[in-house]
């Protein structure tokens, strides 16, 4: 018979259910509900102050939610955090390892805590691939090397879920590439050992990286979830319709599913979700347009338009 403190095995690795967090009068995370299937990588994106770090801190049990529930690797957080700790790895936005420790000392410290769960072979192979100098003290490591060490310590016990909170912020291009290669290596390392793929939640401002790594993307804005969709589906169904108007300033009628629209002289651009030819016909039918063309968007452009759409939306009137 299992006790209530034992984690449940689940196909859903991460689950937020009506999660909210308030700091005084400020509602930083507002009724967040979404889940991430096991074995997938989710990019968690939003502007500064959107509530990403607060959400992640609640997820890993470093912060208590004001209301709602978080499940991580089958454990309810923060109630079952002690059980979850062996199942998760966390890479924070800046290294939290003791600065006086060398890389080797930090590894030895973690190994003595995790005991037999610590995977020496995995750590050795990833450290070698990352070209990490383990004899240097953490305080003498560059930002990129310190983040790589954090990644190494987070995967040493071979966790089922890996959570990264803006790990590459402030990195130069080369350091970022090396870190991401390390992350890809970590993700594929277990596949050779017939281990199910790791679930990764990856918060970042580098949307090119998210597009490259993530299976799905969740956009957070002002503490609210704007969308959570598979990246491929989002990019295939979100399009920008660019119309050249016949007259300079007539009223425009946007089609259903408009995320964001902008007007510059005669050029009118409309970003739409769930794109279909009907939306183009709608624009042609309801507006006086000379020319219409449809453009594909990158994740960066999709994010910008979704956030701009949210910023342009009227504030709800308090009841």
């Amino acid at each position, binding site marked *: 018979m299992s006790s209530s403190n034992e984690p449940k095995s689940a196909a859903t690795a991460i689950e937020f259910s009506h999660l909210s967090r308030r700091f005084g009068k400020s509602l930083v995370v507002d009724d967040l509900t979404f889940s991430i299937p096991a074995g997938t990588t989710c990019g968690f994106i939003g502007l500064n102050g959107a509530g990403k770090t607060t959400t992640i801190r609640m997820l890993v049990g470093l912060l208590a939610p004001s209301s709602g529930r978080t499940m991580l690797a089958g454990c309810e957080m923060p109630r079952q955090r002690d059980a979850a700790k062996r199942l998760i790895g966390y890479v924070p936005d*800046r290294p939290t390892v003791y*600065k006086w420790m060398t890389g080797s000392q930090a590894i030895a410290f973690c190994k003595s805590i995790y005991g037999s769960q610590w995977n020496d072979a995995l750590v050795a192979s990833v450290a070698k691939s990352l070209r990490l100098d383990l004899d240097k003290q953490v305080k003498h490591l560059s930002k990129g090397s310190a983040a790589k060490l954090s990644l190494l310590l987070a995967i040493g016990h071979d966790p089922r879920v890996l959570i990264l909170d803006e790990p590459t912020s402030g990195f130069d291009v080369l350091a970022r590439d090396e870190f991401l290669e390390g992350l890809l290596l970590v993700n594929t390392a277990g596949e050779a050992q017939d281990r199910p793929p790791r679930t990764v939640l990856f918060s970042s401002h580098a949307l090119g990286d998210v597009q490259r790594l993530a299976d799905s993307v969740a956009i957070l804005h002002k503490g609210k979830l704007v969308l959570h969709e598979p990246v491929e589906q989002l990019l295939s169904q979100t399009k920008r319709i660019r119309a050249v108007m016949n007259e300079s300033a007539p009223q425009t009628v946007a089609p259903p599913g408009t995320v964001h629209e902008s007007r510059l002289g005669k050029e009118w651009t409309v970003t739409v979700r769930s794109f279909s030819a009907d939306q183009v016909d709608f624009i042609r039918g309801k507006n006086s347009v000379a020319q219409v063309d449809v453009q594909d968007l990158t994740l960066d452009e999709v994010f910008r338009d979704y956030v701009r759409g949210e910023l342009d939306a009227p504030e709800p009137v308090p009841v």
Partner: protein
Amino acid sequence: MTDSIPSPILANVRIMRALIAKDWRLFRLPIIGLLVAGVGCLLYTGAFFYFYNFGPNRREHWDNSAILVSVIQNAAHSAGFLTALLASTFGGVAIAGERAERTADFTALLPVTRRQVIMSKFVSAGSVLMVFTLFYALIFIFTFNFSEHLFIRNYPVAIWEWQIGCVISFFGVAWLVSAFTTSAAISACVSIATTMGALAWMSVYMETDRANRYVDVGHRDGNLAMVAFTVGLPCLVAGTIYYLRRTAP
């Protein structure tokens, strides 16, 4: 195959050893402070004794051994008080210092329980403070038979009580404040102000209260120890309970 399964007790011992070693390193600066304070007091003793015996204004008729005992006891007393004072930095660094550096997050995400974290901090800080306090108290005990306080029979015990009380008070208040803040310095300052305030209040009370005016030094130190215990112990317990119950590390 059962041999390969690690015993929970052994695993716990292994974890505690790692945490205590880490905490001893964490307390390195206060430990250096304790050593400097102790050496400083002993140097002061040596210099004092030297100038009385070999300096230009030496007094031949003085009883050198009585002076030596007296200055050694004064040095031990001062060093004991400085140890207690520095206990406030141990309390501050223990939680707030780790939180300010965000290393508390690192430890919190390792598979260790809050109880293990607390226990490790108590053992590492407590062992260091106890060794220093015991050392100074032993100086008192060994020199007691040669001292001018021989007529006060409970003097060494009272001094020891006073020192332990001060250590608990300085450490306990800093520990409690540290559980709420991210500044080791604020925790230590509040602890010093609170404990010194309580001791000063008790001293003034004893001076002005007719019943206490003529009590011996041993009794007074015992009373001060009681005040320090009364301030420190509840703070220590409250800080620990709060730290164990809160979600944030």
